[in-house]
């Protein structure tokens, strides 16, 4: 199978997936949710809140953006990749095309990543811009904060997306499972002392943020783990989850509904 053809197929699936996630009515809800950071900073600026500055920005964004918005947006979009197509009976159209199931899962994941980042990154940058502008500071004064959040958004989207993709391939009701893991497990595990937090994605996101950002609420969060290693773990985790999803999907059989 020569390269041009497989690239062309990769492009088609990625484009189809990202367009579905961005161009259909479902985007209204996810875009609104992804814009919460921007809405928040704008309303704080409009309300002329005195102490609104980059440190307040971080204090709000870590629990609100990383632990609520990021999880919701990745969950709703990741479960749409395979499980919704199974429930909607549209998967047979893709499966009877000369493209292997693992390739289908991988290209759909790439499409998902593009869509989620298009949803999450712009409002984040704008929110950062509003915070700096409100303080009358130049856009580049606290670039480390911006880089910190951008890095955690990208790695968070990748890791959570891969995890929720795997759940959606494995069980019939992925949203319920995803909500449980996203909200209950991630927040509970994060606050248990000892090594338990290492089992949650948020731990590595906080580590990266604590290293990248010079002064911020998370300083000295996990000294023994460098940002690079944490990022490496998240990337490895994402790849592992996608491979697992592809493997499970490869073995899945699709019986028709009863009757």
């Amino acid at each position, binding site marked *: 199978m020569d390269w041009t053809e497989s690239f062309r197929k990769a492009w088609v699936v990625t484009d189809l997936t990202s367009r579905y996630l961005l161009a259909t009515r479902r985007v209204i809800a996810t875009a609104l949710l992804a814009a919460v950071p921007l809405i928040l900073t704008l309303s704080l600026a409009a309300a002329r809140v005195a102490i609104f500055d980059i440190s307040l920005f971080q204090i709000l964004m870590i629990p609100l953006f990383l632990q609520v918005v990021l999880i919701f947006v990745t969950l709703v979009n990741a479960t749409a990749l395979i499980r919704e197509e199974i429930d909607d009976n549209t998967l047979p159209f893709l499966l009877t095309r*000369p493209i292997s199931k693992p390739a289908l899962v991988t290209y759909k994941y790439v499409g998902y990543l593009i869509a989620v980042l298009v949803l999450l990154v712009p409002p984040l940058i704008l929110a950062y811009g509003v915070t700096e502008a409100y303080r009358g500071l130049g856009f580049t004064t606290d670039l480390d904060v911006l880089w910190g959040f951008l890095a955690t958004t990208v790695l968070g989207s990748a890791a959570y997306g891969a995890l929720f993709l795997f759940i959606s391939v494995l069980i019939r009701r992925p949203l319920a499972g995803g909500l449980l893991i996203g909200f209950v497990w991630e927040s509970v595990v994060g606050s248990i002392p000892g090594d338990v937090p290492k089992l949650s994605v948020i731990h590595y996101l906080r580590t990266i943020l604590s290293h990248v950002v010079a002064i911020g609420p998370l300083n000295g969060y996990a000294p023994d783990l460098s940002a690079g290693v944490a990022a490496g773990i998240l990337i490895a985790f994402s790849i592992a989850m996608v491979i697992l999803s592809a493997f499970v999907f490869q073995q899945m059989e699709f019986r028709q509904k009863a009757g």
Partner: protein
Amino acid sequence: MNGVVEAAGVSKWYGEVLGLNAFTASFGKGITGLVGPNGAGKSTLFKLLIGQLRSDQGNITLLGENPWNNVPLKRRLGYCPEQNQLYGWLTGQQFVEVLLRLDGMPAAKAREEATAALKVVGLTDAAHRPTRGYSRGMRQRAKLAQALAHHPEILILDEPLSGADPAGRVHILRTISDFARDGGHVLMSTHVLYEIERITNNIVLIHNGKAIAAGNIHAIRALIDEHPHAVRIDTAKPRQLAQALARMDHVVSFEFPASDTLVVRTRQPDAFYRELPQIVSDTKLEVHGLESPDDSLDAVFRYLVG
């Protein structure tokens, strides 16, 4: 390996629910009609053939290859699922075009082939409307278009006629026969028996997960010997005609439902039809109507499955 589809002792279970049970058959040249009651295993057989299910026992091949997770084989087959859900947000044209590009076709060529396929199935005027608004009949045509757009060797169609209106059915049947005339194979399941008889005499009768009959309808009909072939003849003198026809040894019984009607039952219909003109013209008996009510797929179905 003459048949397009070769199945030897294929079984498939969903827990205890029967899918296929030691299904053995070899068919598929030209147009083959797959008929059987609901739950007989038609959809299961199709899902095995397009590699979305794996057989628990026995092995099954399509065009000589094992379909399970077989990527290159997908280029040679076109599948039209039974249910009617499409990508509602895509227009008809986009729907076929996207799937064609998944065959590795460059965008321009895909657009051209998609437009052509939509023309073949008669969906050109609705091509640029989202499929969300399509009626059942239009969805059937859109599914058929995506199945034949990449010129596969075989079309596997699950109930392609259900939901289509009479004009739509005529159009779909013509599309299928043209495809077969150009050398393609077609395997289609249907419940609308009197429709499929118009385009093929080659059927596979499936019941309780087994192929209980495969081949030409009339040949199968003739084989059902506990239901000898009935021929209804409208004639002024039914009794004299009966005497004349009694000479043939394969004739089993006569009935006189009305004063001007004779029903003859014979074990060898072909021989009967061959000798009938001879007898009628020699005896100068006036025959003004001739019909064989149960030489149809409906009758075959009723006798074997009913």
